[in-house]
């Protein structure tokens, strides 16, 4: 074991709710959801000396209300962590949680920390996208970004047109629909096999109708057929466009957490980590085609760490929109509509996308994928980010190595 390397030890999440008044988390505070997954993380890892955690870092796009009060620190109290644990919050929109992991792991590798809690949360019902934001008017008046591209759906619509104009293969609505259908199919197959029970935690929550148990990803609709996806002609962003609710992620509430640890500390505690953090890259792209981000960020991280795309055995990609996933597949020559390497147990289009939390979800699924596929050596978590960014982390499978 490399003592100064950073390892992914464990992760868990709430099930994801729909961000609506009838959604399961409507009356639940975001920081209570964070508290719940922190409780669960502590319960699952009883040998960890929690007071020695070097930082508790949380991604949240909106950092006010129930996601405010420097949440990374405030949840130390609500989750019963010892006072010695410091904390802070991070905003890189969708990649908030992923950024916490990248910087937490780097903090460990530099020798500044041994244990980091890295998580992400978004309660999109309490914090609708862009609510309370006040973008600098210069961005619009000086035509840096046309206002409509502050809306992510419009960037997905544009991506359909942009790819062929930029030497990439085109992606049609039909392909996006077909891709989405297979995601849902894989999701339910995995769900029924108990795949999600391994890292999703039931949460008893208060609702306007009394206490209920939030024990499902509410967005995923069982029995969805390819026909029904294709026939959905509701285009929320562009009339007669490409993007429909069926081939996009939704508005969701959820919290995800992970525990990162140095090799030194794993050895000391006798903990068997699941993945080694190899490296991370973030990159900016044209903000009007935000969904393209994962392509250049993945190329960047591969190059930086001297690897080729073919070295990656499993990829957990956040499908904010099907078009960007299909574009990613086509760019890297993956098999359409399904490639066994990509999102093997379903993806965001099925379970939803509570912005800053999703990057952490990708990592906990990748860790589980590694456990199920001992031959897999390297994996990737990657996602696109608002205002035109991409983020990618390469992880190495260390299941059974220690």
């Amino acid at each position, binding site marked *: 074991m490399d003592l100064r390397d950073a390892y992914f030890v464990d992760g868990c999440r709430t099930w994801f709710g729909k961000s609506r008044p009838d959604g399961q988390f409507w009356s639940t505070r975001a920081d209570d959801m964070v508290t719940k997954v922190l*409780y669960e993380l502590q319960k699952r890892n009883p040998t960890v000396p929690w007071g020695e955690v070097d930082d508790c870092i949380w991604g949240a796009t909106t950092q006010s209300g129930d996601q405010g009060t420097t949440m990374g620190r405030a949840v130390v109290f609500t989750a019963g962590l010892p006072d010695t644990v410091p904390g802070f919050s991070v905003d890189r929109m969708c990649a908030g949680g992923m950024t916490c992991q990248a910087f937490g792991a780097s903090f460990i590798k530099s020798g500044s920390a041994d244990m980091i809690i890295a998580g992400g949360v978004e309660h999109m019902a309490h914090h609708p996208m862009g609510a309370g934001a006040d973008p600098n008017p210069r961005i619009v008046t000086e035509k840096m970004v046309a206002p409509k591209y502050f809306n992510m759906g419009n960037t997905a619509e544009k991506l359909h047109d942009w790819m062929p104009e930029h030497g990439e293969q085109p992606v049609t609505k039909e392909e996006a629909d077909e891709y989405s259908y297979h995601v849902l199919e894989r999701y339910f197959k995995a769900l029924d096999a108990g795949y999600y029970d391994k890292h999703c935690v039931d949460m008893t929550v208060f609702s*306007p*109708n*009394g206490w209920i148990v939030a024990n499902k990803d509410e967005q995923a609709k069982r029995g969805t057929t390819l026909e029904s996806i294709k026939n959905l002609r509701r285009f929320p962003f562009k009339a007669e466009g490409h993007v429909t609710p069926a081939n996009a992620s939704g508005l969701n509430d959820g919290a995800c957490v992970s525990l990162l640890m140095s090799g030194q500390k794993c050895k000391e505690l006798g903990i068997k980590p699941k993945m080694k953090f190899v490296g991370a890259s973030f990159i900016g792209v044209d903000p009007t085609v935000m969904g393209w981000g994962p392509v250049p960020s993945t190329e960047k991280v591969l190059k930086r760490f001297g690897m080729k795309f073919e070295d990656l055995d499993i990829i957990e990609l956040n499908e904010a929109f099907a078009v960007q996933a299909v574009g990613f597949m086509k760019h890297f020559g993956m098999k359409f509509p399904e490639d066994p390497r990509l999102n093997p147990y379903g993806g965001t289009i099925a379970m939803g996308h509570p912005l800053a939390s999703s990057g952490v979800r990708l990592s906990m699924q990748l860790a589980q994928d590694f456990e199920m596929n001992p031959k897999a050596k390297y994996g990737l978590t990657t996602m696109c980010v608002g205002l035109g960014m991409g983020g990618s982390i390469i992880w190495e499978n260390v299941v059974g190595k220690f």
Partner: protein
Amino acid sequence: MAKYITECKLNYFNSKKAGKIAIVTMDNGQLYNIPNTWGTEALESLNKVLDTVEKDPDVKGWFMTGKPFIFNVGADIMSANPNASREEALQIGLVGHKAFKRIMDLKIPTMAAINGATMGGGCEVGLYHNYRTISKSPGGCDHYALPECFLGLVPGWGGTQLVTKLAGPQAAIDLIIMNPLNMNKMINSIKAYEMGLADFLLPPGDFTGASLEIFEKIITGEIKVDRKKVDPKMSDDLYNNTKFQIMGRVHSGAKAPYVALDLIKGAAGWSWDEGFLKESEALADAILSDQFKCGLYSFDLTQRRAKKLPGRPPREVKGNKINKIGVIGAGLMASQMALIFARRFQVPVLMKDIKQEFVDKGLAYCRDQLGKDAKKGKMSAADAKWYGEDLIKGTVTYDGFEDCDFVIEGVFEEMGIKQKIFGELEAVCKPECLFLTNTSSLDVLEMGKNLKDPGRVVGFHFFNPIAMLPLVEIIKTEKTTDVTLATAFDIAKKIKKTPVLVKNASGFLVNRILLAWNDGIFKCIDEGADFMQVDNAIHDLGYPMSPFTLAGLVGPAIALHVQETLNKSWPDRFPVSQGLKNLVAKGKKQLLVFTDKGVDIDPEIKAGWPQGNKKFTDDEIREVVLSRVAVEIRHILDEGVVASPKDVDTGVIMGAGWPFFMGGITPYLDYKGISEKATGKKFHPDGFLKFD
């Protein structure tokens, strides 16, 4: 009150382990500040949920809890009708017993997750379940109580039977009798758990989820609940001791605690149905009793009416901001005032006296009190030091008074001295600074007559000991401005005292009534009644302390001084008692002495008291004394000293220890027929159960 109906809301949780669990949430749709209660509609909704669950063979468990922070605080007492028919009153108990018993009779395991405040019928419904979790204090269930006896009722939905059989007779006595009689003390979840009223004490974070998880494991058999077996039988010793203790508290003034004791004692020998029926009967009697009417009256008076600050000028009149406080005098009363102001306002308090040694003594008293509180864990040592050394400062000059926002004087009761002090203050204080006087007997208008602005003067009369007695009389003169008065009310509120607005008249309100008591008592003794007979007859009304014990506490010299003041205003009604004069002259500080045979009147006092030969029965003594008091209250109201009989009652309950359960003195005098007989009319001609 019953504006927000609590509904029992049913949800199902399909547990992978344990199968289908019915989750029943009590919820009135409001935030925690409007708690869940039981009423007719709420019980109906519970019955409806039970109908559904009973019929569903797939349901494997019943799990009941409350909306966040609140379990259920029981029946809404303000909606109970003391003028109901006996049959209606009986139904109240029967309906609740019947609904709750259905939970007990369910064929599936049942769990109550007591997530927050619970009282009365809330505690009771929890007790019908097979298992209970309770959310740990602080922040979880911080209030657990069966307060019925406090109001003159008995727990009527199973409390006396269930607590006894679950936790034993001693626990039942503590919870159902002694706590309510002890200023309605409530316990928290930790204590409730220790008493055996819950099986699991869980942290408040994710309490409902953790409870549900335990319940799943109970259903599957992974967790077995081992409960300590208790013997529900009450020993004769316990019964007699408890009865003796109740007598010590309420004498024959209240019936409910005695009835509750018998119900608890009976529990061991009764089946559930027998016990519940006895309870329903007892509850019906209690609802129709005078005592409950009185309890309701007092409850409204102290819990609702007093909080609205009757007498304060309208809200538009803003009180002054208080950033610094002056206290003139450093004696016991002044020191107590300095303490309470420093602690509640957390601003500098400057205490002035004429000699450094007096100041030092006052400061030492404050620091000593604070040190004791720190030792008891009521505050940190650092805070005690902060209050005692940084906030409260002593002085013998007026330096530092220039920026005080109000100054209160607590020096010896002499008009000339007080006028001189106010004059000196006027020279140094800023014009907005208010002058408060803690006088108990002097004319407040007279005290400020030499000032350029007598509108800044207001009476602010505390009761000794300040920390114990919640009343403050605010005395308005015809010159007192609205801002001064509003500020005085705000000060009272800030220091958590109950203010009552009183006109500037001799003896103000409470002392005048107390002195009327004394006058009645002395009249009986003067005419020949036995000292101890009088003391006991009056004590038996339900007072926590006998009149002679109280007189010892107040000090006979002070009693005489007030009597002399009142005598100047109303020589006919307040003759100066020769007996009292004699005993003060002898330097007596107490009236009672301990002898071989128990407590008795000090023989020297008896010897120095001129007495006639008339003999009295206990009832006659009470009638003489109460009639005298009724006459005085009539005068007080006719003179407009206070605005309403309710102010009189607030005064005697909060400032003179009149028993809460007796519902204030004016209703008592009404329904005993004394007010009509002594003054020709009732204080509440339309009945006293009319709430604003």
